[in-house]
């Protein structure tokens, strides 16, 4: 087999796999443009005529935007909190040695081994007892807590590599630890902040189990809960459901294409280091 045929075979195989990967997604987007009877006879291919009615109906529905807004707020706050809290802790471990610091670090890294789902029942009780059921914070705080281990690990690895001479120079000039953290460490760490931030955002945006347990009030629903709610209301009107799903995955796809560098680095790099 010479190089050209080998390469042709390779590309054919790749296209085959790629179409299996994208097929269901395209079918969903196309399905949103079809009428239900058309969907029955033609679930996969392009619609005969592109009816945007389903999409428009959903876009004009205030609930849809509310769900997205809720998710956006929860995810953004989770990112912000994880970055600040995680970086602060990692800075201590990277910069300051004190008795027990290794033990505390190991304690905080225990979370890498714990499956989130194992804690969901007592977490529900805890969130309820703190009066946080049906609040954004009932989702944000546990999410942050569960994201801390990985972010501290990644931050510390990065901070360890920052040149030490910098701190010594700043220190001699009378710069305190806190100020150094704020005005040197953080600005120098934008690559890792972006990586961890994007990773945490995607995780939070896609989270389903925690909002499902914490949020009962429809006004607070995240988009994943809203989507299940929508599916419950429209049951077999697949064209509506597919339009809704397509619209909700659109932000994720656009975000992925825009920030793919960080997403891939964060999702895979994080796992390899962990």
């Amino acid at each position: 087999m010479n190089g050209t045929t080998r390469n042709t075979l390779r590309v054919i195989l790749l296209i085959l796999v790629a179409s299996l990967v994208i097929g269901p997604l395209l079918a969903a987007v196309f399905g949103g443009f079809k009428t239900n009877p058309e969907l029955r006879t033609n679930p996969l291919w392009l619609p005969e005529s592109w009816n945007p009615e389903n999409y428009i109906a959903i876009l004009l529905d205030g609930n849809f935007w509310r769900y997205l807004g809720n998710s956006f707020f929860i995810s953004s706050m989770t990112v912000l909190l994880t970055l600040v809290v995680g970086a602060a802790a990692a800075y201590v471990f990277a910069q300051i040695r004190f008795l027990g610091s290794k033990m505390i670090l190991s304690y905080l890294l225990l979370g890498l081994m714990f499956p989130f789902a194992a804690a969901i029942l007592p977490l529900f009780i805890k969130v309820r007892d703190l009066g946080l059921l049906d609040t954004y914070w009932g989702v944000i705080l546990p999410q942050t807590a569960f994201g801390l281990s990985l972010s501290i690990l990644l931050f510390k690895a990065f901070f360890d590599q920052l040149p030490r001479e910098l701190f010594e120079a700043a220190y001699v000039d009378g710069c305190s630890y806190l100020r150094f953290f704020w005005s040197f460490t953080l600005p120098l760490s934008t690559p890792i902040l972006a990586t961890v931030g994007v990773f945490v955002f995607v995780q939070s945006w896609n989270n389903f189990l925690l909002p499902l347990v914490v949020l009962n009030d429809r006004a607070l629903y995240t988009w994943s809960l809203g989507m299940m709610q929508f599916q419950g209301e429209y049951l077999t009107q697949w064209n509506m459901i597919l339009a809704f799903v397509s619209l909700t995955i659109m932000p994720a796809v656009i975000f992925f294409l825009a920030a793919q560098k960080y997403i891939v680095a964060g999702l895979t790099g994080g796992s390899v280091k962990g």
Partner: protein
Amino acid sequence: MRVPVTELPARNTPALGWKSTMSTLNTPTIYKRNTADRIKKNVVSGKLSAVLILLPPALILFSLFVILPLVDAAYYSGFSWNGYGAPSDFVGGQNYQRLLDHSVFHTALWNTAKLMLVSLIIQMPLALGLALLVYRKTPTNTLFRLVFFLPYILAEVAAGLIWSFVFDGDYGITASILQSMGQESVYVLADRQWAFPAIMTVIVWKYFGFHMMIYIAALQSVPKDLIEAAKLEGAKPRQVAWFVQIPMIKHALVVSGFFAIIGSLQIFDIIIPMTNGGPSNTTHTIVTYLYTFGLSRLNIGFGSAAAVVLFVLAIGIAFFYKRSTGKEDQA
């Protein structure tokens, strides 16, 4: 720890009593420039206040929402408790006994094991094969990589919902394919025999791109001269892959295997929109089981027992993983 701690300055300041207070000033020249006064005043108070300000938020959040709930789970699992008031009806090991006697829990465990097997036997080889095909940096390869990775970033619920359309007996793609072949359409997700294989298909579809990306990163760091040398010796591409590249990325394979196993333990979101554990409780995993039989029926004690089993499995796997990879990982 990658940065070696300089012990010398620490020994010079025994009055501070800290093990290695001066580790940040790790060149003696700088140490000499500072006076003893300044060290005492600034280093100790500066470090102490920095530690006391920067560390507690992480510690409090982590303890409150990660460690404490796991301890609580172990405690609750000894009670028959609906979650209201304080748990008082102590039942000892009864919850665990009920769990072990419950056939649905056996199914859930077996299904979880099946997910692990599918991930290891089908998903990882598939991901490895594709990684070998697209790891070189060319524009088309980048495009394929993005496409293969795309399912991974989609929310599991959304993926589950899309696939429940694909498998729908009236509208779905499988139905229309079967009909075009003159077969009767099958309600895949309502079929006891086919529902779980359908879920496994979706899991492979959703996660193979993640494993592929891990392998690609590893393959790109395999030294080029090794591959060139093998080629000069007359090795065919397949032989290069099998004898040079795959052995060189063994670590990545182990890591991804670990993630596949731990991930299988936690599958939940995909099942809910697809089958919700049905038909007749045949597609539960450990997590959907503890959600369905613990939380939605408010059997907090019973559900906690299932959570403890899940937790023990995860810890057991993590320890096994750490032991088999040795001490190179710090976490």
